């Protein structure tokens, strides 16, 4: 998964639906651990800013 930092509002909605908890929200950053990501695409679907895409 790839986060477009120009679109991302760091709201944390993506992290709330991640079934395995590989999304970390920091003050100005969203970090997705792609090593552990299972590509369920829930974060893509729920992101209000449409900032997440498949890599």
């Amino acid at each position, binding site marked *: 998964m790839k986060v477009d930092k120009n679109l991302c*509002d760091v*709201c*944390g*909605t*993506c*992290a*709330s*639906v*991640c*079934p*395995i*908890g590989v*999304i*970390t*929200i*920091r*003050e100005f950053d969203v970090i997705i651990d792609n090593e552990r990501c299972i590509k369920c695409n*829930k974060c893509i*679907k*729920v*992101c*209000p*800013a*449409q900032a997440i895409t498949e890599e």
Partner: protein
Amino acid sequence: MHKKINSYYDVVVIGAGPAGSVTARFIAENGCSVLVLERDREPGIPVRCAEGVSHNGILPFIDIDEKWICSKILGARLHAPNGESIDMYNNGDGYVLDRRVFDRALADLAVSKGAILLTKADAVALNKDEEGKICGVKFRHENDYIDINCKIVIGADGVESQVGRWAGIDTSLALSDIDTCCQYTVNNIKIENGLCQFYFGREIAPGGYIWIFPKSETQANIGIGIGGDATIPGKGPRFYLDKFMDKNFPNASINYMVYGGVPTRAGNNFIKDNVMLVGDAAHQVNPITGGGIVQGMIAGKFAGETAAKAIKENNISQKVLKEYSNRWEDMLGANQRFMYSIKNKFMDMIDEKLNNLVMACKKIPQDELNLYKLFKETIKEDPILLAKLATSFVVSKLKV
């Protein structure tokens, strides 16, 4: 570090929103030491909230102060997909807050009782002792990593809660149990002050609704939440909000924009070992309205008092901590489940049924119409819901 902090506190609270600050305040007030870690530079920002609360809801927690009130709310107007609307004035008064000031006031109150607040403090892990028991928190402050020991950790870290996951509480939400939201704070509009407005319909806000919360006669929070399972590529919440703005407020000046997610399930899993969750982190939100400020504060009081009791009795067992979830269950459990069962029904209603619902409510005299009557009309559209409701009430009665 700009502030001297100890290496041990009885309780560490992660997150200084309303739920976290109220929790900390009740811990401190009951004589225990408490450190609040806030990831952002100050509590209350950024504001990801429509900022509406009821007067009766906040009264037990803080003295009403004009400095965090933007406007007073007397009623609500519900708009059906066909443009018909009903006004309701019998659900109690409320306010549209200035959350930046409100959240700071709650944090200041906690600090005045003895809580220590640290901002720019980003919790990164829960520390465990040799036996695997959670014994503290690791957080990052600028470039330093700092370990704090404690007996209880409270996660008030919002919808994205990491604390719950670290502790082994499954907090991940189904797409049908989260609303994906976008909100504009707009100026230069003319709206009726004192009235919150809600717009429903498949084309308007699939699986959710659009809200207008007036901050004055010319300023309002106008936002949308749509079901997390209702999005399609290229059509997130902002797509629908822009369509609404073009139609209804083409000349509005959009001053601020925020995105956010609102959990819309009736959370019931807040405790694991010596960790407790409060507020959005525990999904303590009204599943229909998405309102969570008051729920978070109620949970904060229960969690804070329970934590302090456990510390003072030196007994951090599940049995003692469970008092928190029992008190929540007694006060709000059945209500939350009721709202959740209505939510699924209400949000699944086709536009025609929503139109019928508003038309039916129009027949109820203005001074008798309230949310209860609205729900009664909703149930008429679906008798199965009645059975579900009865079950939820019976289950909660048996538990008591």
